[in-house]
């Protein structure tokens, strides 16, 4: 594999700005990951830690490499603001006159940032998993797939053309399928894996068609070339709109946006490190990265493109937040929270807050990975995912609890923590779009503020139910204890970042992030009024949540089942009623989230399952009725018909001579009739 790239490299085409230093070797990083995957598959089984060592070593190399590339890129950015990335490619193949596919990589601010995120989180997860997965079945297979995943993610991040990005994209899909279905002995796990793969695959089809439209419009798959053409009007705006919407399908599929979001909660069936790496920090973010990478296409299309992005983002963020409120399973809460935060970023892009949403990717990666890993250690201790079996763990697992609380506060966007800075900028972006008069902007602003409140609320609920209050697990079987050092160190590191990660983007003079990643003008100015408003909402939400779940005695499940038909009625009004905030009363709010969850399970999730059922049913119809019945039946009947006519004709041979002679004359008579008729 390496030799292939080496031979290809020497007659590669040098394009774009000059490179040098670490960036030159950026392509080595995904190769390391892929090679490590191969190595683990080959010899992993015989190693003491069953292949984990190779994985961790590779991840260390990847992270360091990522950092080097990052610093080199930053150096270039600092050198001249107008530097827009270094690119190197070699022709992978040409499949027609003038249509070539390149095998190349491109590094710019955005890519550098992503390299750091992926590198660091992957390293943390690998270390964490090394101990988490000890004693599990098929560990070698697990680590190999994990490395494969990291390789694919890095390919997507570094790809300089859309087709190579698609290759990485589907590579990620495959590894997520394998990882989710790691414990495939249980049927639900393998079904969840298939559901994840198929739902993302539906999105991928849209992405593929988007690539085709752009390829035929721009004549090549190269991202830089396409963005350039899009920017200076080389491609018609109509085509750009169609292409943008199609690309957005891919994003919706991969980043689990409404309506293709149903697979992410089920994907929690996989081991927690997988959820942490794939379903928090890296893969699900790929959709946002795609939109960011191809932003000129979105920007120069008709406004409807970005409006759709914004609207979808807003809807998803609200629904996901509501659903997170009502979950029993700790990991599902985090899953819905991830969907909600991703929707934040998508909505941010929709209203043009480019730097803010990329900055939110940055911060979200740290605290969400932290939350998942921490949740993993909690579950590992309590041997159950449900919060009903937890409670009062603060004293038992101090490090995990503290880091978890730090992550939670970051998620809820309280000031000093990372979450506050990025979410605040997003709200500012939305506010500016709203003030600029775009209807989607106002909707996004409203959704963001509501979600800020709801997020804080479910964070509070989560913390209350897990770490405080009476312990609800039965003591003989379960005696929670702090996780081993290999699991807690990553938690601490990530907690540090959850706190300090945001500072790199503090508005004002210290702001580096703006310079690293920007589209068009520098950075939205700090708006104190928005900051206060969002923090206030967060505080209110946290207080409400704490009040309800920590103090009051809440029986969550009873109401839901009894009043199901009423909820359905409520639901319909729910959609019609566009006064969103009016009269939020605790019972009403409970019922709304329950209804939302019910919709999600029956309508949306049901839809996906129904699609499966419909496919199988039509398959049976196509096979049994059309294929066997109609076409094959026709063929067999034809054969039987000839057989039967043969049978009848046979009996004309009666054996009596005079009948023959008479038959001869009759035959001649009919033939004469035929001749006269066919006067050919």
């Amino acid at each position, binding site marked *: 594999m390496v030799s292939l790239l080496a031979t290809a490299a020497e007659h590669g085409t040098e394009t774009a700005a000059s490179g040098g230093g670490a960036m030159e070797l950026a392509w080595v990083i995904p190769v390391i990951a892929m090679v490590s995957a191969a190595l683990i598959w080959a010899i992993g089984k015989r190693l003491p830690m069953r292949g984990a060592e190779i994985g961790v070593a590779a991840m260390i190399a990847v992270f360091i490499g990522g950092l080097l590339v990052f610093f080199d890129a930053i150096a270039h950015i600092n050198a001249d603001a107008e530097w827009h990335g270094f690119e190197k490619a070699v022709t992978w193949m040409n499949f027609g006159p003038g249509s070539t596919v390149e095998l190349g990589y491109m590094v710019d601010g955005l890519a550098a940032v992503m390299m750091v995120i992926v590198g660091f989180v992957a390293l943390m997860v690998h270390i964490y998993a090394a101990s988490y997965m000890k004693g599990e079945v098929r560990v070698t297979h697990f680590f190999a797939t994990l490395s494969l995943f990291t390789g694919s993610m890095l390919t997507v991040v570094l790809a300089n053309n859309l087709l190579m990005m698609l290759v990485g994209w589907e590579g990620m899909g495959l590894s997520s399928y394998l990882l989710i279905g790691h414990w495939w002995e249980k049927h639900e796990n393998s079904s969840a894996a298939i559901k994840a793969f198929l739902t993302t695959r539906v999105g991928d089809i849209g992405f593929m068609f988007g690539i085709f439209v752009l390829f035929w419009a721009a004549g090549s798959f190269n991202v830089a070339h396409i963005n350039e053409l899009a920017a200076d009007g080389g491609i018609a705006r109509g085509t750009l709109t169609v292409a943008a919407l199609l690309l957005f399908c891919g994003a919706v599929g991969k980043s689990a946006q409404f309506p293709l979001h149903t697979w992410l909660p089920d994907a929690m069936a996989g081991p927690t490190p997988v959820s942490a790496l794939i379903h928090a920090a890296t893969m699900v973010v790929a959709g946002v990265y795609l939109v960011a990478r191809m932003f000129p296409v979105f920007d120069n299309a008709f406004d409807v493109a970005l409006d759709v992005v914004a609207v979808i983002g807003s809807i998803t963020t609200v629904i996901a937040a509501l659903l997170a409120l009502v979950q029993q399973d700790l990991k599902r809460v985090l899953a819905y929270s991830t969907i909600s935060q991703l929707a934040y970023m998508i909505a941010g892009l929709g209203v043009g807050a480019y730097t803010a949403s990329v900055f939110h990717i940055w911060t979200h990666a740290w605290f969400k990975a932290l939350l998942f890993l921490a949740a993993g250690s909690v579950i590992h201790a309590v041997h159950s995912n449900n919060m009903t079996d937890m409670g009062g763990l603060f004293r038992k697992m101090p490090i995990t609890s503290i880091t978890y609380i730090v992550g939670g506060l970051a998620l809820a966007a309280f000031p000093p923590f990372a979450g506050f800075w990025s979410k605040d900028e997003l709200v500012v972006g939305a506010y500016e779009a709203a003030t600029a008069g775009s209807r989607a902007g106002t909707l996004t602003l409203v959704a963001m503020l509501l979600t800020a409140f709801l997020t804080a609320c479910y964070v509070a609920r989560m913390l209350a139910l897990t770490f405080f209050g009476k312990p609800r697990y039965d003591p003989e079987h379960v005696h929670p204890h702090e996780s081993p050092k290999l699991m807690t160190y990553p938690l601490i590191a990530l907690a540090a970042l959850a706190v300090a990660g945001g500072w790199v983007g503090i508005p004002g003079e210290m702001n580096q992030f703006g310079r690293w990643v920007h589209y068009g003008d520098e950075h939205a100015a700090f708006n104190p009024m928005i900051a206060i408003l969002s923090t206030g909402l967060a505080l209110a939400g946290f207080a409400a949540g704490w009040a309800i779940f920590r103090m009051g005695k809440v029986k969550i499940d009873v109401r839901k089942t009894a009043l199901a038909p009423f909820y359905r009625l409520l639901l319909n009004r729910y959609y019609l009623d566009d006064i969103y905030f009016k009269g939020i009363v605790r019972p009403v709010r409970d019922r709304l989230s329950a209804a939302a969850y019910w919709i999600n399970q029956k309508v949306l999730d049901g839809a996906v399952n129904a699609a499966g059922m419909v496919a199988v049913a039509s398959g049976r119809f196509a096979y049994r009725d059309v294929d066997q019945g109609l076409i094959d039946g026709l063929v067999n009947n034809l*054969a039987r018909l*000839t*057989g039967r*006519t*043969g*049978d009848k*004709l*046979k009996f004309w*041979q009666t*054996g009596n*001579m005079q009948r*023959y*002679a008479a*038959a*001869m004359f*009759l*035959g*001649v008579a*009919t*033939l*004469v009739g*035929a*001749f006269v008729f*066919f*006067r*050919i």
Partner: protein
Amino acid sequence: MDVNLTALLPEIILAVVACGVMTIDLFLPKERRGAAFMFSVVGVLATLVAVLNLYGQNITTLGGMFVVDRFAVIFKIVFCVAALLVFAVSHAYLKEDGEIPHGEYFTMMMFALLGMLTIASSRDLIAIFVSIEMISIPSFVLAGIRKHDIRSNEAALKFFLFGVLSTALMLFGMSLFYGIAGATNLADISENLAGRTDIEEVSLLAILFLIVGFGFKVSAFPFQWWVPDTYEGAPIPVAAFLSVASKTAGFVGLFQVMFLALGSLAGTWRPMFGIIGVVTMTFGNLVALQQKQIVRLLAYSSIAQAGYMLVPLGVASATNTELNTTIVFAVVAYLLVYAFMETGAFASATAFSRRGGGYMVDDYAGMFARSPVLALAMSAFLLSLAGIFPFAGWWAKLVVFQALIEGGGLWLAIAMGINTVVALFFYSAVVKRMFFDRSEVTTAVTLPPVLAGAIGIAALVVVVGGVLPDLFGRLAQNSHFF
């Protein structure tokens, strides 16, 4: 009146040998009857040699009555070779059967052969009529040669009655043409008929009567009723002789009359042969699907094959001699290949019907395990009849298709295509039984040397002809006689 004896040499030799064998047979003691076979083989070989040295010459004697040209010589060769193969098959059959007298059997065969040699060269209605009778009468005797077997008698009676009736009808046709054209020499007839417009209606009627005679000989529909019963009743070598030699003679006669004499009336008889051809092949194939007895199956398949050979006549044209040449080339090529594959098939059927084998198609089950060589030969002939590549049949069918397409008979070609597919079904059914089914009977069927030789030669010709069809191609190349 010049009489060029060298032209008549083959016929003379054959007549002398036939009479010789007949008389010697009287004096031979019972057990040394094999001699008749030896003498007749030598006789036919001598005739064949005489014919071969006529190859390439072009002689017309007896006032245009008797002509030796490429067309006649090729068919004389075919007749002699076919006769030799049938002799080889009959030798084994007679030794097995024991009841049939060798002398009469081979004499009658040679008399019939004489009729065929003369019809190939005769260019006169009377000569054709007499030659046809010369073929028919010994065949009636041959069909009924197993005197004590009522099935053979019945076969002979049916064959006789149908034969005589169709000859009478043909004669009526010939008399009408004599009335219309005023001559019996084919060249004169075509001369008189050329350009006459008033004869449209009556010539249609006369042609109809004529077709009855040739239709009977060639086993075309609706004149083929006698074929299945006669082939089943008569001894298998006689059936082979009828299906190969006398059918080819029928075609030769048909060709001479239709192309030489009634060339200008092509417009009228073209549709007749088109329709007769299609109906014949369809009838033959459809009924063959249901046959359980191998000889009856081969009988219906030979009817279908006759259909394939009749169809090209359906695209003949009065004016375009180049098209007619292709048509004659196509049918002559088909006849050449047909002679070998049909004789081979009957020979294999004879071989298998002896001890250990059986007449029914089901008896063929698992034959490959018992006598692989015979099974391979039989499947070679059957697949060749079906027109599958490695065997000569594919080229023969291709050439006929070619003639049809060139003549514009698209619908005829499609009908023939569909028939080929239907035919493949019953040919492969027999092959399937031989190869795929397993049967409890495991005694191998022994092959006497002479019969094995005949089957071997036929199989060799069929396979080599399939791979390098040009052997037949060059022979049939300039066989036209325009």
